[in-house]
């Protein structure tokens, strides 16, 4: 069983060169999310192709959330910041030297962001004192790990479409005096772990 696993991940020896080029991709899902909701991200990636087996990847994105004063809770939340991911994908298909891929991989991700949060003035429920609170430019940060599974299908020529599903696990975080944050750029809505996805337009170079 160990031998099978080693065989799976071993660089195949054939006449195909190691460096097979690289891909540039853009996430359409995050951009769509930005148009349809209070938050989203613009994300691009640069992926190296090593022998159609290993794909080191660098993802750079810009996440943004702008939740105007909530009708029910009266809370407004705003943040925007870049985020970075570095990782490696592995082609799971047996026939590796083809234009379509099924891959699995991981990412290490980091973001440092500032939060503006404000709660409109309200009557405290028991004593009826008027109170409100808010923070401006509260410094926060987060490190997390992602496990990725995805596909990459050739449409025509160098143009591909693909999607990925990701499980994100928070490793470390700093939320300043807020106690918690709501949207973390690149991670999504705050939690210790969450699922996410991307839908990518990809160009082979």
């Amino acid at each position, binding site marked *: 069983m160990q031998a099978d696993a080693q065989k799976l991940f071993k660089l195949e020896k054939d006449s195909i060169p190691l460096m097979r080029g690289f891909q540039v991709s853009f996430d*359409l*899902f995050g951009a*769509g*999310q930005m148009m*349809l*909701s209070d938050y989203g991200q613009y994300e691009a990636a640069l992926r190296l192709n090593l022998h159609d087996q290993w794909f080191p990847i660098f993802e750079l994105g810009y996440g943004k959330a702008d*939740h105007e004063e*909530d009708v*029910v*809770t*009266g*809370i*407004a*939340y705003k943040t925007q910041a870049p985020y970075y991911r570095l990782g490696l994908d592995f082609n799971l298909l047996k026939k590796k030297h083809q234009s379509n891929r099924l891959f699995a991989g991981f990412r290490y991700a980091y973001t440092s962001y500032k939060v503006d*949060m404000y*709660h409109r003035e*309200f009557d*405290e429920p*028991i*004593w*009826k*004192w008027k*109170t409100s*609170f808010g923070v401006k430019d509260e410094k926060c940060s987060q490190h997390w790990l992602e496990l990725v599974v995805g596909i990459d*299908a*050739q*449409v025509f020529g160098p143009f591909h*479409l*693909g*999607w990925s599903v990701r499980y994100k696990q928070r490793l470390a975080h700093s939320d300043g*005096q*807020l*106690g*918690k*944050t*709501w949207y973390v750029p690149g991670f999504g*809505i*705050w*939690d210790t772990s969450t699922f996410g*996805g991307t*839908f990518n337009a990809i160009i082979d170079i």
Partner: protein
Amino acid sequence: MNWKKVGCVAFLIFLFSHFLIFQTSCTSIECPFEHDVMTKYNLYKSNEKTDTLRDTLNVFSHRINRTDTLLLNSLCGKTTFRLNVGYANPEDTLFFKFSNTDYLAVDTVFVKKENYPHFESVDCNASYFHNITAIRSTHHAIDTIIITNPSVTYDPNTEHFKLYIKDRR
């Protein structure tokens, strides 16, 4: 035309659009189930054993407009109770009214605290956490009140005060 490829691409776009609509339209509101921030008083005898309320206890306070607000209504026969905490005022003034068929005593309890706004989510109502810095009271029925844990959060199980009532027997 490679219809297999066209079908594959169309399926990808179909999946993407449904996933996008699902993600942006469905939100799970993850507000804490226990979101009341209250102080917990446990009753003790002088020998540190648990005591039980023998009189009827009502606790009230004054609102900002000086009208009364009832925080605890006719509690009797219990060993513990919880009270609300003011969000932003630095000191809560509470009136503990102990009554029985032939007995009436009212003690004033002053709870000094620091207040910290706590944010969970844009979908969850505002709340405050507190750090109790001091407590003092009059002593008509109350013998002593001691702070055991100054941090007041959502946790309903943490004891914050030990309350010793005078033994009238």
